[in-house]
């Protein structure tokens, strides 16, 4: 922890001992509670084996929300078109498998990520010149164009009905996906999520991630400190798109089908809501939001299949009114108010 001492003044305590510096130095270290979501996920596997189908959907949703968080939560790219990449990934896996070209799951996922990343790069280069409502509309329209393209190419994509009963090879040639019991799918999805999560976590705590935060907080200032803002945004958008593509590929594999819904506004809007609900720009918002939203939707719909939207709508309105920055934001505010004693400064 020694520093090249500044020549100007003999330091009594080095600058790095300052609490503010200590916060920054230690921020990327793993905390004990960060294991909790993963323990919970493992726990679910053993405690509720009957819910693994829903659990797998949840894991995919978390991954998708995490991908969006990188672009929206960290870099402040407000998009309602992220399903463009989810769909690209899903159709990459789907087309390869359905037409018998390639069924090996892990390499298919990589291809899904690459395909979505390319789409992200190309669209990002064009779209990220704009901001605000304009960017939002451009992302929606790009997504809609891809959806229409997939619909028009129905001889290959199956159009609205999609591609059914995809043959997915066993993972490592050993672990087969059973349609009825999602044990393999669940574990597979969990491991993919973990790997992607570690990547995102590394990125956001890197100087690159810090500069994305800077772009989100004040774009003009980032230009004024000499940051190549456009390039950073495009890189971030591309990575985010690739991760969304992996999420889409994973969805296609675990469900063994793909259809136009992977491209639709509903999916893009849902992932946005999930992220805002959980709390954007804070890694675990994707987890909290996905669990809260999807679980509520799932179980409310079982109890009250004709009007579950009422409960969901109330939840969203209440969180928006009373919590800034989602459930995690609410938790943080409560913690600050009642729980955490502020460290002396």
């Amino acid at each position, binding site marked *: *922890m020694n*520093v*090249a001492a*500044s020549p*100007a*003044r003999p330091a009594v305590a*080095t*600058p*790095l001992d*300052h*609490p*503010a*510096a200590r*916060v*920054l*130095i*230690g*921020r*990327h*270290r793993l905390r004990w509670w960060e294991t909790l979501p993963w323990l919970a996920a493992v726990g679910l596997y053993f405690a509720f084996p009957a819910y693994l189908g829903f659990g797998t959907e949840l894991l995919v949703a978390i991954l998708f929300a995490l991908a969006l968080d990188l672009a929206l939560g960290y870099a402040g790219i407000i998009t309602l078109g992220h399903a463009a990449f989810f769909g690209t990934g899903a159709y990459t896996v789907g087309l390869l498998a359905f037409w018998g070209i390639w069924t090996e799951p892990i390499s298919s996922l990589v291809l899904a990520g690459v395909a979505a990343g390319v789409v992200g790069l190309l669209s990002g280069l064009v779209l990220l010149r704009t901001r605000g409502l304009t960017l939002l509309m451009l992302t929606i329209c790009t997504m809609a164009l891809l959806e229409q393209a997939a619909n028009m190419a129905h001889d290959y994509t199956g159009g609205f009905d999609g591609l059914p009963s995809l043959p997915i090879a066993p993972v490592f040639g050993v672990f087969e996906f059973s349609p009825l019991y999602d044990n393999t799918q669940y574990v597979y999805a969990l491991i993919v999520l973990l790997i992607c999560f570690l990547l995102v976590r*590394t*990125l956001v*705590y*890197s*100087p*690159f*991630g*810090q*500069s994305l*935060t*800077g772009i989100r*907080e*004040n774009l*003009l*200032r*980032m*230009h*004024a*400190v*000499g*940051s*190549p*803002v456009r390039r950073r945004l495009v890189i971030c958008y591309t990575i985010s798109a690739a991760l969304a593509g992996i999420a889409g590929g994973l969805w296609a594999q675990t469900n063994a089908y793909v259809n136009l819904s992977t491209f639709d506004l509903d999916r893009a809007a849902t992932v946005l809501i999930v992220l805002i609900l959980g709390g954007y720009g804070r890694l675990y918002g994707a987890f909290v939001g996905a669990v809260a939203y999807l679980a509520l939707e799932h179980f409310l719909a079982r109890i009250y299949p004709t009007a579950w939207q009422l409960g969901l709508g109330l939840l969203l309105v209440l969180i928006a009114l009373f919590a800034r920055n989602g459930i995690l934001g609410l938790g943080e505010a409560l913690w600050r108010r009642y729980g955490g004693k502020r460290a002396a*400064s």
Partner: protein
Amino acid sequence: MAALRRQTGGVVTETRLETQALSRDFGALRAVQKIDFKLDAGARHALIGPNGAGKTTFVNLLTGVLTPTQGRVLLGGRDITAKAQAERVKLGIARTFQINRLFRGLSVLENVCIAVAERVGAAASMFYPAGRRTDVIAESMHLLETLRLEDQARHRVSELPYGRQRLVELAIAIGLKPGVLLLDEPAAGVPSAESHIILDALERLPEHIAVLIIEHDMDVVFRFARRVTVMVSGAIFAEGTPKEIEANPEVRAVYLGQAGHG
């Protein structure tokens, strides 16, 4: 470096930043017209003028936010007119804004770290924790100490009083280690009780930096500047030492007369 040298009062100085016939139109409006301007190394130069005189437009032309309709911008003798804003920053032109442009949700230290990381070229690295770049953190912390902001280093910028926020604005610019520093009304909006902290900080700026300050507050101008340029209606109206400017009856008529009591 083919630096330009010239004689000013018997001392050899070096021109850091220069404009030649710099103009900018907004539609039919000529906001800046044919400005020839020189900023010397180590200068403490003030740019004054009534509202709408084109001062901020001029600064935006210098930093590359706006592209000129005509004319050139030279840095150390090198033509940088075509360079983008970010490139000019790398070449050593930093600025502050009239209205704070800070990373409001981040801590004071992080605000400075972002600038420093960008300058030292750390900011592009993606797979290495920012927390391990202790050189960046130490330099930023040190800078805060010199500005006497260390006690606020942990606070979110949005929680600070306005005067301190202006200081963070300054810290970010200094963190870029500029050769030319453009200060757009650094004391604007700061309550008079706090304005001394800004002035103190300005006086402690490293001597070699060429500083151009846009300021309305004449106390600040006369205390800080060694040279003053008066801009009116997009053109240079007068230039000289503070004493000369104060004594210039035409300047008094168009400008000081209306704002001179401050």
